[in-house]
């Protein structure tokens, strides 16, 4: 398996590199100008030109690419155009932990709720509870997340005022002490994580239900029941384990969705995470930051997929990598 992992890791290097090269050219060919902000009446027309010269955007595209390549191979992704010339990895190192937190919590919540709902639906197939859960899951699954987020804010932050509408912490939360600060942080994360995970868990629930139903009909389940095992043991030990196998692969493949979900959740809830960094970088045509973000998210997605494949092999001894 180790050789397999190494092989996959080696293969991912040209893949990520190809993605970065594509991004490099696409963003430069897209309309828009990183110095556009300085083109306005009352500002000398020289300013935009000087800014472009500073950013090295006056060179022909191939020259820019070669320079960029040289820097990237030395691990230098440059400085952000739009964020006060901060080195891009500094910007990302501030933003990434926030997104990873949201993504990790969402991932856990997704699978916890998804699996529970899926099992209930499968075990009570065609009951009222199953239909209710199915309809509810589909309802949330088909709801646009940004709209859902705004509805949650209106209900829980505006009307009921149970949860805050934005930010990672209250103003002055540092004086609450470490535990108070921690609770305050949880309190701020309830709404965004709920929004992100309801949608995802609805999808996973449908998946688990289908997979469970298939397994429950197998002969060995009938055998388990026939030998008098309690229903709980049959469901959780015999059926669930096998039913979860295909679900494991979802962990890897749901990562990109969670990351893209975090994109607008961070904008709506004012979290300074990767999603917001990316969106703002794109609007500001901040080339170095866009490329560095693509690098980070691309790497995470490749690693996520690798993880899913490895987990699959770990869970199912029949699969050899």
């Amino acid at each position, binding site marked *: 398996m180790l050789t397999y992992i190494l092989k996959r890791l080696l293969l991912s290097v040209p893949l990520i590199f190809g993605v970065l090269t594509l991004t490099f050219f696409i963003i430069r060919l897209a*309309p*828009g*100008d990183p110095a*556009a902000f*300085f*083109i*306005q*009446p*009352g500002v*000398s027309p*020289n*300013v935009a030109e*000087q*800014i472009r010269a*500073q950013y090295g955007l006056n060179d022909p595209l191939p020259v820019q690419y070669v320079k960029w390549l040289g820097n990237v191979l030395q691990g230098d992704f440059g*400085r952000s155009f*739009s*964020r*006060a*010339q*901060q080195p891009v990895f500094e910007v990302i190192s*501030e*933003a990434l*932990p*926030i997104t*990873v*937190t949201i993504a*990790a*919590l969402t991932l*856990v919540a997704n699978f916890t709720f998804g699996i529970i709902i899926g099992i209930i639906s499968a075990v009570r197939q065609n009951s009222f509870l199953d239909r209710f859960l199915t309809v509810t899951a589909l309802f949330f699954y088909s709801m646009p997340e940004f709209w859902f987020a*705004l509805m949650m*804010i*209106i209900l829980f*932050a*505006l009307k009921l*005022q149970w949860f*805050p*509408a*934005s*930010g*990672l*912490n*209250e*103003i*002055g*939360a*540092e004086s*609450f002490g470490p535990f108070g*600060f*921690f609770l305050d942080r*949880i309190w701020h*994360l309830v709404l965004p994580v709920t929004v992100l995970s309801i949608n995802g868990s609805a999808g996973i629930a449908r998946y688990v239900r289908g997979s469970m139903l298939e397994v429950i009909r197998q002969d060995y389940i009938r055998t388990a029941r026939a030998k008098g095992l309690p229903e709980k*043991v049959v469901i959780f*030990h015999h059926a669930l384990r096998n039913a979860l196998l295909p679900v494991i692969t979802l962990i890897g493949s749901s990562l990109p969705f969670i990351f893209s979900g975090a994109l607008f959740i961070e*904008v709506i*809830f*004012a979290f*300074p995470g990767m999603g*917001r960094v990316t969106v*703002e970088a794109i609007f500001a045509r901040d080339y170095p930051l866009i490329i560095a973000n693509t690098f980070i998210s691309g790497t995470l997605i490749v690693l996520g997929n690798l993880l899913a494949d490895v987990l699959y092999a770990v869970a199912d001894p029949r699969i050899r990598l």
Partner: protein
Amino acid sequence: MMKADGVMRSYRGTALYCCFLALSLLLSSCTSGSGNRERGSAAKDTTLVIAMLGDADFLNPVIGASVTSSNISGLIYPSLLQSEFDTTTGLLNFLALEKQLRPSIGGKKPEAALAKTWKMSADHKSITYILRADAFWDDGKPIVSGDFSFTYRLYGNPLIASPRQQYLAELIGADKGSVDFDRAIETPDDTTLIFRFFKPVPEHLALFHTSLTPIPAHLWKGIKPEDLRSSPLNQKPVGAGPYRLQSWGKQQELVLASNRRSNLPKPGNIALINWRIVPDYTVRLAQLQTNAVDIVENIKPEDFPSLVKANPEIEIKSVGLRVYDYVGWSNIDQAVYHKTGKTVPHPLFGSPEVRRALTMAVDREAIIDGYLKEYGTLCNTDISPSLKWAYNRSITPHSYDPAAAVSLLGKQGWKPGPDGILQKNGRKFSFVLYTNSGNARRNYASVIIQQNLKAIGIDCRLDVQESNVFFENLQNRKLDAWMAGWSIGLEIDPLDVWGSDLKKSTFNFVGYRNPRIDEICELAKGKMVQTDARPYWLEYQDIIHRDQPVTFLYWIRETQGFSKRIGGEQLNISGTFYNIDDWTLTPSATHAP
């Protein structure tokens, strides 16, 4: 046995889940070390909280470009003069400690000014400032004239690309391409500062252009110009103003603490100012409504009623008028211009009569009544009614009159075709009206415009473009008709937008050309007393109103939501935080500990 095992497993699972939860939360809380320890909810009564759309970029007046940066730099750094906008005349006034350009209306002592007085030379080619000797940077070093000459060199350095380098346009050498700083700025001693110009400059303009904010030379002089933008000093500014930077959590919050040692001026009653970055508009509104923040700028008129109803502790304040929307009609045939460099009238919008007819066909009042309500005013030209000294009151706005528009178009040869659409020489009056995405006001207006034009037989299709794309198309003069807006400066200088030299006047997107306009602008600028230029500006407005290079729609009052616990604020066209040192915070029930 099996049951016990199952329970154990589920315990283990829960414990693992909790550990994971704790770990990831800890991970994210580690990164937010910003903020200060002495604040708590009890401290809210001395903390003013402002919700902002975006973060500051550089806390350095030489390169800071965003509005947030300017607002914050204004509180951190000292200024040579204090300026105030006289609402009775619309003139900008400049005040030093012992001298003022015009009598001050507020009667406020200009304590923030570093200059004691100034003297303009008789030939208007130099201005000499005498600085006060009791002003100090935060690190205790005195503020001297050398700080100004040092900073002006940075403003003028092309490697630094300061967005304010236009202010140096009259200094000696600027006419030859680069300012000759040795001759243009002289500092005979620590309290004397002399600026020299290559041409006579009116006093108000000289004051405006020589009062750029200084930075401490002793801290910055070791930094190479090309490294200025990446210097850590931009993030930890040393100033001398009433506030100091206390903490800055990037993209989260920026906290200013009052600087008790400052005499430029002495800080007011607000101990801490917290600028929170909340990118989403709906969330900013929600925060204002729940008293989580005190100020939210640029609230849309459609949100006023529900906001004030939900929280009576909020009031809407407005300032203006500096911003207007317009419909741009390409005056020249852009395709021919790009191909040959020649200017020929646009086949649809080339004649002033047609453009006038288009203005008369648009029900501008309906847009104001339907969207802006009392926060909008009909716009005739780009000279704001707030600039009372130059505003032409005798202009009668083109009223909404579809019948007159049809007859005017008829005289120009535009007759209804078989499908009801106007035609001339086989060409239909049909075009696409572009606007930028994400602007609810312009979307609202564009739909009304489309309906109005349809009613007189003009086929107008709407298209929305991403802002960057839209702006690039405008700049490259690729659009025939569009809807956009301008925010005007407090000094009238319209040549950028209407100048006949299309290569030089890069913002003349419509390609409007009228030699008399060029002439008037030069004549007005040449007057050494600002108000002497009034006759020229009156004529200017008459011409622009007659020629209608664009359809001017409406002036917009910028609206801000304020918590009523703030007292003493005077909103001014020159900025929301113009007199923040006079503000007070009243403890309110919702904010009491």
